[in-house]
């Protein structure tokens, strides 16, 4: 009898378990986007970019902003999620209906996302939102499709410059207030810094996971060249990689690596490696935007006064940044609510003073030469507020602000990631092979880039 009742209990438990598993499976198919406003007219808007709990201050500020926005817009309910655009999970989230209504992207993403129609057209809903007409057109262009429609908004921007260690400059007998403005000066400064010894590297460069290709593009831009150009006659893209500008860039890198030995022997580096070298005080200079400085200061417990930023030598630089796009399935109500949220939280010159005031007491940097998104009239007002509350030594960034404005700010080529893969190989060859044949490398790369550009519609 005991056996029977025990058996029955076991059976019940077993069936319950199986049922629970089946329920679990069906629960996997939940969807976040698609429906418009609820019965009571409240629009629930799923957004990302909420800082993780490991950044308590940023999280607190974000949550306070959500509350303030919901109070001002009672018909909008913000459902915030952590994280930003990750190409590894993006397609799965989109396919599974889990993509946020408003999602964070880097400037590298929109071109591909728009081409694959993975973002919603927001053009018709922009006109009533304040300040959107004050965004500098070159940054709005990043979010424009070939159809001329707008698919997203920028909220952060940087130009690649030269981040350097002021202490090492001084030790090497260089003037930390006058960073190099030509590549020849970079080369000689790198040599002097690496001559300090003890594993000190003068200049470091990325050459892994497409980051080498990304930086080589910037090198080529700065030397006056291009990676891809549009043929005026037929409107087709073609490679411009096999050029004197690229040759000069690679020759300079080759000489620093092999003749001067000022780039260290460890190569195949990527962003975290180089930031670690800078944070450890073992690196003189590297190519980066001013946004790298707070990362290094925070991660390696350094001080802002230890670092300076100069503009990129040469004639042009590669710009980058971040912004937001909208779920392709988002309803007009959601897009309108999303635009209101973005303007309130991220594109709000009226709140600059409020924002600066609430962060300066918490060691959040104010005064970095970043995010200059607005047209001159509005930007001047924003700059004036930042200057008032600046808590970083702004004079250390003067070499950047003074020269960067005069540089041509260029964007990435079409099919950027694929082209960067090709240029990654070129960068690797020059940095790892003393006898690298630069002419041949560029010839081969140009052929590959042409093949990639042939697929651009």
């Amino acid at each position, binding site marked *: 009898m005991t056996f029977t009742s025990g058996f029955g209990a076991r059976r019940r438990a077993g069936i319950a378990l199986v049922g629970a598993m089946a329920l679990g499976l069906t629960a996997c198919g939940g969807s976040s986007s698609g429906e418009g406003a609820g019965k009571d007219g409240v629009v629930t808007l799923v957004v990302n970019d909420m800082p993780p709990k490991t950044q308590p201050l940023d999280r607190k500020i974000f949550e306070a902003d959500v509350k303030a926005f919901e109070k001002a817009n009672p018909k909008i309910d913000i459902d915030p999620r952590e994280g930003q655009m990750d190409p590894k999970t993006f397609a799965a989230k989109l396919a599974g209906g889990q993509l946020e209504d408003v999602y964070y992207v880097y400037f590298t993403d929109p071109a591909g996302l728009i081409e694959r129609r993975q973002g919603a057209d927001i053009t018709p809903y922009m006109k009533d939102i304040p300040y959107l007409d004050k965004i500098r057109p070159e940054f709005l262009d990043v979010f424009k499709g070939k159809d001329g429609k707008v698919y997203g908004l920028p909220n952060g921007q940087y130009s690649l410059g030269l981040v350097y260690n002021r202490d090492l400059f001084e030790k090497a007998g260089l003037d930390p207030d006058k960073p190099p403005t030509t590549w020849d000066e970079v080369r000689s400064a790198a040599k002097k810094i690496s001559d300090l010894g003890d594993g000190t590297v003068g200049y470091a460069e990325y*050459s892994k996971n497409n980051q080498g290709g990304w930086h080589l593009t910037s090198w080529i831009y700065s030397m006056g060249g291009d990676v891809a150009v549009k043929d005026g006659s037929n409107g087709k893209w073609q490679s411009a990689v096999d050029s004197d500008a690229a040759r000069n860039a690679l020759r300079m890198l080759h000489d620093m690596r092999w003749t001067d030995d000022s780039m260290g022997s460890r190569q195949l580096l990527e962003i975290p490696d180089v930031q670690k070298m800078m944070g450890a005080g073992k690196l003189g200079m590297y190519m980066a935007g001013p946004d790298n400085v707070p990362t290094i200061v925070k991660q390696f417990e350094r001080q802002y006064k230890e670092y300076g930023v100069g503009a990129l030598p040469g004639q042009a630089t590669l710009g980058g940044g971040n912004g937001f796009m909208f779920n392709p399935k988002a309803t007009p109500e959601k897009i309108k609510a999303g635009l209101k949220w973005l303007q309130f939280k991220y594109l709000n010159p009226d709140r600059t003073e409020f924002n600066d005031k609430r962060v300066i007491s918490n060691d959040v940097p104010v005064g970095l030469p970043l995010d200059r998104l607005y047209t001159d009239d509005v930007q001047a007002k924003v700059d004036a507020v930042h200057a008032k509350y600046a808590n970083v030594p702004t004079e250390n960034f003067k070499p950047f602000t003074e020269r960067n404005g005069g540089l041509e700010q260029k964007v990435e080529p079409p099919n950027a990631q694929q082209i960067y893969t090709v240029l990654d190989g070129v960068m690797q060859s020059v940095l790892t092979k003393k006898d690298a044949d630069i002419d041949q490398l560029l010839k081969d790369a140009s052929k590959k880039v042409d093949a990639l550009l042939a697929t651009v519609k």
Partner: protein
Amino acid sequence: MATTDMKTTVRPEGAGAPAASSGRPKEPKPAGTPKAARSHLARRIRENLIAYAFLGAGLVVFAAFSWYPIVRGWLLGFQQVTFAQPAQWVGLDNFRRLFDDPLFVTAWQNTAWFTALALVFGFAAPLATAVVLNEFRSARGYLRMTVYLPVMLPPIVTMLLWRWFYDPGPGLFNSALEALHLPAQQWLESENLAMVSLVLVSTWANMGTTTLIYLAALGGIPGQLYEAAELDGASIRQRLWHVTLPQMRFILMITLLLQVLGTMQVFIEPYILTGGGPNDATVTVLLLLFRYAFVYSDFGLASAMSMVLFVVLGLFSLVYLRLTRSKG
């Protein structure tokens, strides 16, 4: 009794009639009649309900998370997908683009080279280690744990550890070479050496499991075979060659197959340590597949590549099993 049952149950309309069984004594019915068979079956199902439920749940989970993705993956190989628009059928276009990619051939060459090197290092090393460990009479547990320890490390930790070993500046290997007055090496930065370096990491990280399997197999070889060989005057080498290896033949064949299937799918080593460089020297099939899917968001191309990989590995397994079976 049996006759009556026969009579009642041969009537078609009587099938399953509850009245037929009412009032009957509860003694077990003789098997063999359709009705008895039915109730026997019902009882078996009732008794094994949990088993069937678990089997069913297992099948559902398998179907949802294994079979469906496999079928979907195959379909994706013939489609262009954005997940925002309905998928477009593109025929063999993805395969055409795949074969046109200059890195396709490079990736297969590199993968074959990795697999070959992994066989040289990775097949011999655990066998030799197992044979040596098997000879120890003391500290066996300690030695086995030491050999198995790297398997327990998360792969990312292993890779970062080895990246420091390979650092051309202050790295462990070059420091050791320097102490021996030997020239420093560009372990990961040299096109010739990078793949060998990856194989060394992979072997170190994975040989623990194979070593344990070999140790178990060695333990199963009857001691009298060795005694007989010793009586016949066989040397250590002869005993290894004529007793140990033939006795382990089956295990060796299986591990060889598994190792080839595993090493052809090498990913994490090049992904973390070299990113496929220098100059594409360590771009493997899976690394290229990863780039297609998660860097270029070209899932059609990635699925086409995975189908090619599936076919190659399937063919290899088939040929291998056929060859080894005929020899057996």
